[in-house]
């Protein structure tokens, strides 16, 4: 920095350099402190889930689908468990066991891994497809735009869940099919948004300048348009993630998503649903876990939208 000032002198003042990394970090921290309570709550929830998902194997002594006791044991039952060294220890099953006698808490932790992981993968794929398509359609205009937009119109006219059910029947239920089907169906919304916001940017002078400079399509889309449409896309990413997450959970709940013995929150609700008729809330825990995460993400997205778009408070 000091070098810069000596040689360039006033120019450095006139053209403000991008804030150094350190300041950007402190800016972020300051914004975080000022965030409303709901957004802070959302952030805490998200961090908590991510930690749980990453450290699932460390946090529980059992394997993902290890049968540890009898079926439907109540909360707080103690069982003997063999440790890795060959010895034996007593473990308390805080949330009891499920319909096959597997530890509920373990399933919940691994469920976080699988459900969130797959939802995240699907959302990324949807953004890759929809985002690239949308920006390209806006940049190219003309017939590529027309064709892409009409295809998307038709795809969006079919209710997503029904379409997903149809496709899953045809291609069979596997994780790959699930991810691909939902990613393609969801990329339509991303396409619409990416196209709409890029259309506003494409007409700007600096795009014209880049074109005259002879920049290729790749440069224009990635270096000129993409940075300018990031905020709405990031907000949309949060919302899409929630939507994908809920769709996958719903499909798993219907028995058409992740297949056993993979731990997954949707199918956990379904497998243990009979307990509800006895007034036991254990089967509701995975459902509550889904709800809490989506609420958290929604709160954060809400706050982010307010910050970046200056959305009016009364809307």
């Amino acid at each position, binding site marked *: 920095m000091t070098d810069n000032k000596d040689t360039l002198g006033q120019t450095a003042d006139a053209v403000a350099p991008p804030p150094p990394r350190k300041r950007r970090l402190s800016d972020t921290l300051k914004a975080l402190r000022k965030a409303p309570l709901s957004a802070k709550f959302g952030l805490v929830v998200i961090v908590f889930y991510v930690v749980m998902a990453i450290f699932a194997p460390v946090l529980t002594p059992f394997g993902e689908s290890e049968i540890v006791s009898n079926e439907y044991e109540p909360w707080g039952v103690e069982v003997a468990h063999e440790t890795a060294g060959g010895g034996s220890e007593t473990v308390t099953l805080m949330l009891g066991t499920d319909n096959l006698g597997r530890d509920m808490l373990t399933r919940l932790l691994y469920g976080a891994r699988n459900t969130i992981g797959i939802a995240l993968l699907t959302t990324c794929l949807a953004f890759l497809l929809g985002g690239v398509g949308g920006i390209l359609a806006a940049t190219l205009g003309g017939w590529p735009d027309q064709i892409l937009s009409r295809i998307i119109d038709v795809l969006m006219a079919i209710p997503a*869940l029904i379409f997903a059910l149809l496709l899953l029947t045809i291609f069979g239920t596997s994780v790959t099919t699930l991810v691909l089907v939902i990613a393609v169906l969801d990329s339509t919304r991303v396409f619409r948004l990416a196209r709409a916001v890029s259309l506003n940017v494409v007409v700007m002078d600096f795009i014209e300048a880049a074109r005259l400079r002879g920049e290729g399509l790749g440069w224009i889309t990635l270096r000129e348009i993409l940075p300018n449409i990031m905020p709405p896309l990031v907000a949309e990413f949060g919302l899409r993630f929630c939507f994908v997450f809920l769709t996958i959970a719903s499909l798993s*709940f*219907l028995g058409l998503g992740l297949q056993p013995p993979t731990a997954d929150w949707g199918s956990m*609700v379904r497998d243990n649903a009979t307990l*509800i008729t006895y007034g036991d809330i254990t089967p509701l825990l995975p459902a509550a876990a889904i*709800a809490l995460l989506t609420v958290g993400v*929604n709160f954060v997205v809400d706050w982010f939208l307010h910050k970046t778009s200056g959305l009016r*408070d*009364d809307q």
Partner: protein
Amino acid sequence: MLIAQRLALGFLVLFVVSLIIAAGVDALPGDLCQEMQGQGATVETLKACREEIGLDKSLPVRYVEWLGGMLKGDFGTSLANGREISELIGTRLQNTFFLAILAALISVPLALVLGVLAALYRNGIYDRAVNVVTLSSISFPEFFIAYILILFFSVNLGWFPSLSNISPEMSIAEKAYKSLLPALTLTLVVVAHMMRMTRASIINLLASPYIEMATLKGMTRRRIIVKHALPNAWAPIVNVVVLNLAYLIVGVVIVEVVFVYPGLGELMVDSVRKRDIPVVQACATIFAATYILLNMTADILSIITNPRMLHPK
């Protein structure tokens, strides 16, 4: 003119969607007959089977025949039990519409009242509470809401049955009583969106000069909103109500499964599990058609109620 255009577009979409649904089967690895007969298939049985369900004809011919059958109410036969699909669907379709209408009867008035109240007491504690509750309720998976309702109303309080096993012989009142919990679940899912739109469209209007005029005349806030703002806010509200009705028809799938309600959604999920493709095709067509038609209605209604949209820029 614009209305005719929307109509034409709607039917075009319907046509393309039916094409997609019909052609989807061709994407099967192997074909329907191999799927049905599995390991025990021989060349002869396969050939006989293909001739029987018309797989030996070309795709366009099959499509026209399938579409013609659909329009006449002949959906073909189920792979799982060989029964006529129209027979399977008949009462189930009625049940699904019954549930959706019941949910609409509860949710639409509720959403309107809540929305108007939220606009009336804007930024007050009531408004904020409603905002947080609705934002949360759209984040909940349907089956979560459904099971919570079951836990409270049927297990703890014992007011309603947890299974909605309705049958055609029941009276309407009895049916309504049995389907009240699923209807309530659907209500909670759609009410948030409708209520927020009602609130937003009224608040949008509050900045107009004629509202200011009414305020200056010394009218009460309640009278301004109900008499002056609401009539002009109808267009977007009607639009969002119809869109949510479309969602209701489709959203019944999961709710029906939770409550074992004998509707079309439950049949569809069941058939997906059995990979009973003709049934899934028929259900998907009915759901998609209803959805598209309702969406088209929403578009046309918003054009009719807002003459400005008849003259696009």
